[in-house]
């Protein structure tokens, strides 16, 4: 038999999942799931159809959006959102530093590690709005409840990333600092912190950005900020004011994103 006959004539792209049975059973499972999901999802198409003109009216409201007639409410809400974001980000990051250090496997003893990981898991399981409902119940309506919500959610996000970053650090540098006879705090400050700082500053700004976006929704359940104004605007079908609020949110998020990129380059 010649070599040419033994080799396959045509080249075939290698599949992403190599095991054939796994590939086919995954595809079959996906097909069954999709059939079930589409079969059980009830869509009221007449209602959707009736809503389309309203949707068109909503998008028409963007040209031009109405910044003027509700300006004092919008300005109040946006400023309150910004204050909340600043306070919640600062408090959240300050609290997440000890939790994050405790949740890093390479520098924390086992009991501390499991305790801190537990805090992170609870904080990450609930969406901000669910947390906000409970904090509003406890602290009353207003920005304080929103602040506590965002700070709590920040702990889960920032603490987890800080812990992972510390676990990935270069142990040689930390050991060099320890070899000079540094105490524990000095060791953290000179051996660990410089290694994680640039990334953590970027992540801090990213969390600021997330907190600002979330502050727009905690208001829907009474946590202060722009969300309450936005919710009212939708409920009253004042689409042009709602469009104005959305555009302001998009603009602020873009500003934060650009300045974050700039600041990160400056720090590095």
């Amino acid at each position, binding site marked *: 038999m010649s070599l040419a006959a033994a080799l396959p004539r045509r080249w075939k792209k290698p599949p*992403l999942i190599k095991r054939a049975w796994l590939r086919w059973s995954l595809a079959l499972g996906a097909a069954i799931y999709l059939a079930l*999901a589409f079969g059980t999802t009830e869509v009221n198409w007449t*209602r959707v159809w009736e809503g389309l003109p309203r949707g068109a009216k*909503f998008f028409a409201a963007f040209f031009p959006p109405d910044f003027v007639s509700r300006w004092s409410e919008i300005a109040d809400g946006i400023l309150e959102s910004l204050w909340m974001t*600043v306070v919640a980000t600062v408090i959240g990051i300050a609290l997440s530093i000890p939790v994050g250090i405790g949740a890093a496997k390479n520098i924390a003893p086992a009991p501390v590690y499991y305790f801190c990981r537990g805090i992170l898991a609870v904080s990450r399981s*609930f969406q901000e709005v669910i947390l906000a409902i409970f904090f509003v119940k406890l602290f009353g309506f207003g920005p304080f409840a929103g602040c506590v919500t965002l700070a709590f959610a920040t702990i889960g996000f920032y603490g987890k990333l800080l812990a992972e970053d510390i676990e990935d650090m270069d142990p040689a540098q930390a050991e060099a600092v320890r070899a000079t006879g540094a105490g524990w705090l000095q060791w953290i400050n000179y051996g660990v912190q410089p290694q994680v700082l640039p990334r953590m500053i970027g992540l801090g700004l990213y969390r600021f950005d997330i907190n600002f976006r979330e502050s727009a*929704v905690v208001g829907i359940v009474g946590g202060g900020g722009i969300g309450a104004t936005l919710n009212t605007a939708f409920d009253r079908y004042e689409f042009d004011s709602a469009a104005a609020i959305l555009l302001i949110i*998009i603009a602020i998020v873009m500003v934060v994103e650009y300045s974050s990129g700039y600041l990160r380059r400056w720090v590095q």
Partner: protein
Amino acid sequence: MATAIKDGTKVWQRRDRKAQFATWGVYLTGTAIFVYCWELISEKTTWAFVWDAPAQAGDLFARMVPPDWNSIHGLWWPIWDTLNIATLGTLMAIIIAVPVAYCAARNTTPSVAFVRPVALFIIVSSRSINSLIWALMLVTIIGPGVFAGILSIGLRSIGFCAKLLYEAIEEIDESQVEAVRATGASGGQVTAYGIVPQVLPAFAGISVFRWDINIRESTVLGLVGAGGIGLPLNAAITTLAWTQVSLILLLIIATVVAGEWVSAKVRHAII
């Protein structure tokens, strides 16, 4: 290396004088901004309620235990809806995100001057608006229900998936694309055999990661009427049925943790 003179001897310092002042300046401004914002918030807070909060929390907790396990039969359907919202929403998002990412990546976009800015704008506006706000809009436009939930999750996720995907496309190894092109492949073939295999693992990872986030997000869409487990949660809170609330919260934790586990396993298998 920065040094300072102390009692006639050189002492090591972490930063020189200028950097030290700059650092203190940043800290001072930051603290001032923080204190100012805190003042404004504190003005709007009824502190009596805050001091009362631990007692309130204890009271609420006492009302919430034990969870009302009998009401779980009514919750399977909303949980199924929640999972569907997350999955179908993610599916919709990745179907739309692929062409958007292709247009937004510097090395594959048809036109840097016209198409790329449009794609980037789609990404930014989708990312800036929370899925709950998308749901708020869609519920007023197309009416309450699961469909509004799927669309809002989908619209929110387009930006996320497209952003990560276009960054992955921009990081591909050009020499492989070149090699495929050198065989005489057409444009479509270059994409299919030169670019797609390089970004496919990243693409699968991004989709699963977003699916995991979307499960968490879709648990609250019901609060504004967009279907899922949020509907019974809202109903239980409004009727002060705290034992049902605690059951729903436990169910949400279980779902989210299970989703996170699946997502971590799949990403681990791919990467």
